[in-house]
């Protein structure tokens, strides 16, 4: 597409914007329309609940291009950024200083570089024994309580929640507090007022926690970052909030969904390829990467004007049949490594290695210690989070 007139011609094609979000009750996930969108020329536009028009990016190649193009920004302070209510809008730096997923290079780099040493493959491997202990204790508690459980509340959510709070140095006793506030932030139907209140409460809480750690440092990441001094106290609150939220909610959805899939595909239990394929297959963070063009840019044969919003849909990219054969099948024998479930480019998930280890230990240990585990309701009756920014299950009733 080198001739600019051709690009011009394509953008004028009259296309009826599709409804958004596409994940609807009774429909399979990823939404079947993604297939049609990938096959269309150019990109498909949609209208957010607020009335803003955004471009949906669905092909694997285009999603990677959109997530790495310097003319496309993650910063919600740019005009046109898709940040409508009911779509899990992104806070700006003014609202939450240190919320560095909302920054572009080079400002973003200062935060990322400070944190990556804590999430390397090696560092995360060293956390294995601590994660194993958390997983074992959760299973001990489930077994002690009887022969049924809600695997989301009792396991899938509690494991990553305990892991990230222990890493950051957030007291376990405060889990209820931050889990309920996080739930507001990741629910599509939350109002702006509810969202702001939850975000403020979390920030206030973390500010107090940081003040305590200034006086009495512990053996945790917040104390370490305080001592390091690269981030201001205010920025550290925002960074902690981001890590806390990202660290438990996304992993919880992955663990829960993965258990359902592995129950019907037991031959893959304990095979680490299953983790990578589950990440691709479910792509729970489909609605997380919101962007805006800050200059005119062409993506997938579509001219996007400066100031127009863009949503690269990672679940669509991860089900692109030109990259993953039979994309809607769960097949860990494929090479799923090129999936973009953690995003792509400078903002790709900082904690991705931690997620992989948590999922691996969770599945191995759960099925080893409770070999008779089964669903307590038919799979079709599992309550799916149609109202969630992240794809997942509200609850997962099991018995053994």
């Amino acid at each position, binding site marked *: 597409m080198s001739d600019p007139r051709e690009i011009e011609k394509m953008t004028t094609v009259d296309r009826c914007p599709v409804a958004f979000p596409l994940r609807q009750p009774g429909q399979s996930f990823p939404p079947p329309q993604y297939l049609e969108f990938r096959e269309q020329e150019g990109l498909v536009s949609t209208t957010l609940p607020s009335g803003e028009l955004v471009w949906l990016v669905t092909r694997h190649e285009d999603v990677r291009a959109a997530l790495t193009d310097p003319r496309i920004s993650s910063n919600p302070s740019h005009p046109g950024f898709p940040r409508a209510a009911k779509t899990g809008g992104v806070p700006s730096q003014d609202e939450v200083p240190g919320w560095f997923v909302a920054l572009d290079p080079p400002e973003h780099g200062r935060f*990322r570089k400070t944190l990556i*040493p804590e999430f*390397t493959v090696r560092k995360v491997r060293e956390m294995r024994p601590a994660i194993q202990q958390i997983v074992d204790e959760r299973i001990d508690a489930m077994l002690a309580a009887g022969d049924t459980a809600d695997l989301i509340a009792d396991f899938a959510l509690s494991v990553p929640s305990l892991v990230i709070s222990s890493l950051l140095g957030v007291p376990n006793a405060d889990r209820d507090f931050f889990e309920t506030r996080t739930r507001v932030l990741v629910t599509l139907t939350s109002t702006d007022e509810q969202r702001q209140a939850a975000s403020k409460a979390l920030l206030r809480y973390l500010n107090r926690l940081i003040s305590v750690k200034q006086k009495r440092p512990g053996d945790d990441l917040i104390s370490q970052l305080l001592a390091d001094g690269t981030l201001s106290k205010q920025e550290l609150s925002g960074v902690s909030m981001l890590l806390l939220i990202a660290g438990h909610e996304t992993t919880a959805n992955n663990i829960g969904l993965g258990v359902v899939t592995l129950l019907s595909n037991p031959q893959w239990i304990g095979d680490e390829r299953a983790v990578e394929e589950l990440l691709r297959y479910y792509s729970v963070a489909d609605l997380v990467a919101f962007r805006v063009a800050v200059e005119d840019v062409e993506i997938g044969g579509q001219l996007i004007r400066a100031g127009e919003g863009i949503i690269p849909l990672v679940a669509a990219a991860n089900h692109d049949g030109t990259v993953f054969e039979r994309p809607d099948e769960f097949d860990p024998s494929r*090479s799923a*490594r090129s999936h973009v479930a953690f995003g792509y480019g400078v903002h790709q*998930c900082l904690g991705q290695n931690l997620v992989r280890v948590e999922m691996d230990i969770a599945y191995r240990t759960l099925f080893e210690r409770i070999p008779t585990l089964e669903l307590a309701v038919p799979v079709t009756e599992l309550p799916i989070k149609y109202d969630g920014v992240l794809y997942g299950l509200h609850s997962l009733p099991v018995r053994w």
Partner: protein
Amino acid sequence: MRISVDTDRCVGAGQCVLSAPDVFDQDDMGIVLVLAEPADEPAREAARRGGATR
């Protein structure tokens, strides 16, 4: 096969280490290191998956 790394562009995600642990590593700051040239075709294929090829 020639492997070069641009440490300024490295985002420290560790994808290369997971794909080809005999070829790539991360330093204490999380930035990519090249341990060795891939020894055979499977290792070269793994190295390709671990990095952006062009």
